[in-house]
C-alpha cells in the first residue's frame, strides 16, 4: 500500500538483453526511489527449475541462518536440493519436490523462515530501507532473467517492515506489486480467510494478492481474476502482476494512480512515471502510452488468458 509508491515492470524480448535485466530494473527503481523511500522489492523470472522440481525464495530475520545446513536438510527430507544462492537476508533453493510439500516441510521444521515465493522461475527479494541501499546489498543489478517487477514503497497505513513490502506472492510463479490503497480490505480479508487464504500482515495490497490467489485457485484465468478486481476491490490501484511468461497491468476505473507503458523491438516496460522508462536503452524511440483505466494489459511468451 501507499498513496505514492513506485512500480516498475520490464520484459525483455531480446535474449541479448537478459544478462542486463537486473541492471536496467535497478536504474528504473533508482528513478522511482523518491516515490517510495521506505522499502523496496523485486521479483525476477529466471533460470527455471527442472520438471518435477520447484524453486523457492526464503527470507530470514537476523541473525543470518546457516543456509547450507538448511539446504542439506531440505535435500534429505525431500529427495534433493541445490546449494543455496544467498542474497543478503534471502536465499533461493531448487528442491526436487512439489511446492506444497516444500511449504509444509518448512512451516513444520523452519517456522522462523518466511517463504517469499515458490514456482519454477520466480525469485522475490524485498526489504525495508532505502531502495538504493537495497539494490546494492542484494546485488539486484547483477541478476539476469527474462522479466522482472519492482516496487518502491511509501507506507501510508501499515508498518514499514520487510513483510509489508512488495512484491507479494500470489501463487506459484505469480506475484503482485501495487500502487494505491484499498478501502474494503478488512472485510475482504475476513472473507478470504474463510476460503482458506493465509495472510502474514494487515497490509491492503496483500489482500489484493490473496484475492487473485483465491480467484486463480477457483479456476479463473489471470485476466478473469484481474477483471474481478474491478468489481470486488474498492479503492485506488495500479497493479502489475508477474507470471512465468510475462506480466499484466491493471488500473482502477477512476485511474487515480499513474502508469506509463512503453515498447520497443527489444523490451516492454511499465512504470509509475515516464522518468523510470527514460533510462532504458532506446527509450526516446519507444512507442509510449498511458494504459486506459479498467483494462487488462498483458505481455508474455504466452497469453495470460
Amino acid at each position, binding site marked *: 500500500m501507499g498513496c505514492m509508491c513506485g512500480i516498475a515492470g520490464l520484459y525483455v524480448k531480446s535474449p541479448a538483453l537478459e544478462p542486463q535485466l537486473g541492471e536496467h530494473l535497478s536504474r528504473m527503481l533508482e*528513478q522511482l526511489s523518491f516515490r517510495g523511500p521506505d522499502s523496496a522489492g523485486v521479483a525476477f523470472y529466471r533460470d527455471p527449475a527442472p520438471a518435477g522440481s520447484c524453486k523457492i525464495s526464503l527470507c530470514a530475520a537476523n541473525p543470518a541462518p546457516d543456509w547450507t545446513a538448511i539446504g542439506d536438510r531440505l535435500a534429505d527430507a525431500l529427495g534433493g536440493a541445490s546449494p543455496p544462492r544467498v542474497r543478503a537476508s534471502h536465499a533461493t533453493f531448487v528442491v526436487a519436490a512439489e511446492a506444497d510439500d516444500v511449504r509444509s516441510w518448512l512451516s513444520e521444521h523452519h517456522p522462523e523462515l518466511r517463504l517469499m515465493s515458490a514456482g519454477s522461475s520466480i525469485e522475490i527479494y524485498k526489504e525495508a530501507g532505502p531502495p538504493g541501499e537495497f539494490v546494492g546489498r542484494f546485488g539486484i543489478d547483477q541478476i539476469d532473467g527474462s522479466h522482472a517487477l519492482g516496487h518502491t514503497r511509501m507506507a501510508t497505513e501499515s508498518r514499514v517492515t520487510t513483510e509489508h513490502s512488495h512484491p507479494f506472492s500470489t501463487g506459484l510463479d505469480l506475484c503482485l506489486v501495487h500502487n494505491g490503497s484499498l478501502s474494503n480490505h478488512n472485510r475482504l480479508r475476513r472473507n478470504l480467510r474463510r476460503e482458506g487464504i493465509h495472510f502474514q500482515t494487515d497490509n491492503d495490497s496483500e489482500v489484493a494478492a490473496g484475492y487473485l490467489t483465491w480467484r486463480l485457485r477457483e479456476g479463473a484465468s489471470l485476466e478473469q481474476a484481474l477483471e474481478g478486481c474491478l468489481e470486488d476491490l474498492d479503492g485506488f490501484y495500479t497493479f502489475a502482476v508477474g507470471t512465468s511468461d510475462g506480466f499484466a497491468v491493471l488500473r482502477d476505473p*477512476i*485511474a487515480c494512480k*499513474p502508469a*506509463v507503458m512503453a515498447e520497443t523491438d527489444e523490451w516492454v516496460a511499465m512504470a509509475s*512515471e*515516464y*522518468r*523510470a*522508462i*527514460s*533510462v532504458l536503452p532506446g527509450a*526516446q524511440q519507444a512507442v*509510449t*502510452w*498511458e494504459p*486506459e*483505466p479498467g483494462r487488462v494489459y498483458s505481455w508474455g511468451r504466452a497469453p495470460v488468458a
Partner: protein
Amino acid sequence: MAVPDAIQEALSVDLATDSVRVLNQRLHSDLEPRRVQVMNPAGRHSIAVGIAVAHEVEIDGHVGYYCAGMNQLATVRVHGNCGVGVAENMMSGSVIVEGSASQSAGASARGGLLVVHGDASARCGISLKGAEIVVRGSVGHMSAFMAQKGSLVVCGDAGEALGDSLYEARLYVRGSVAELGADCVEKEMRTEHLEHLSQLLERAELDDVQASEFRRYGSARELYNFHVENLGSY
C-alpha cells in the same frame, strides 16, 4: 509562429548536466524574451514552470509532471509526451504538446492556449477557468469537470462524464461522447460558435478538421445557482 524581434540569442540547457532548478531560475531571471532549447528532459517534473516572460521554449523529449505550469506569455513546445498536469494553472501564452498528455492537462488554467496533438487522458481541462484547450486526439473520462470558463475542443472522442457539473465553459467534440456528465447537455451550434471554433482551430494550426464537423456541449444550468441577470459577470 513569428518570432518577435526582441528575442535575443538562443539559450540551450541540457538537463543531463543541469538541474531543472537551474533551468527554471534562468527562465525566471531572464527578463528579455529568449529562445530556449531544453535537451534531455527524461521525464523530469516541473520543467519550465512559472515563466512570466514571452520566451519561446522548445523541449526535446518527454517531460514529467506539471510542465509549463502557471505559464504567462511564454510559448512552450514539447517535442514529446507530457506527464500529469501540463500547463496547469496557465495564465496566458501557449503550450503545444506534439505527443500525448497524461491526466489533468490544462487543469484550472485561466488563460492562454494549450494544444495537444496526440491524446489527453482523464480530467483534461478539469476546473478550467478561461484557457482554451485544443486536443487533436481524444480525451479521457471526467474531462472539463466543473469547468467554469474557456473552451475544450476535442477532435477525437470524449470519455465518460464529459463536462460533469459544468459551469460556463464551451465544449466542442468532433467524435463520440461516451457519456455526458451531470448537468452537461448538447447545445445548438450557432454561427457565433462556429466562428469561435474556427478561430481556435486556426490558432492551434490544425487545418485538417472543420468547425462544421463538431457538436457543442454546455451546462444545462440546473445544477448551480445561476441567475440570468448576472450573465454579464460570467
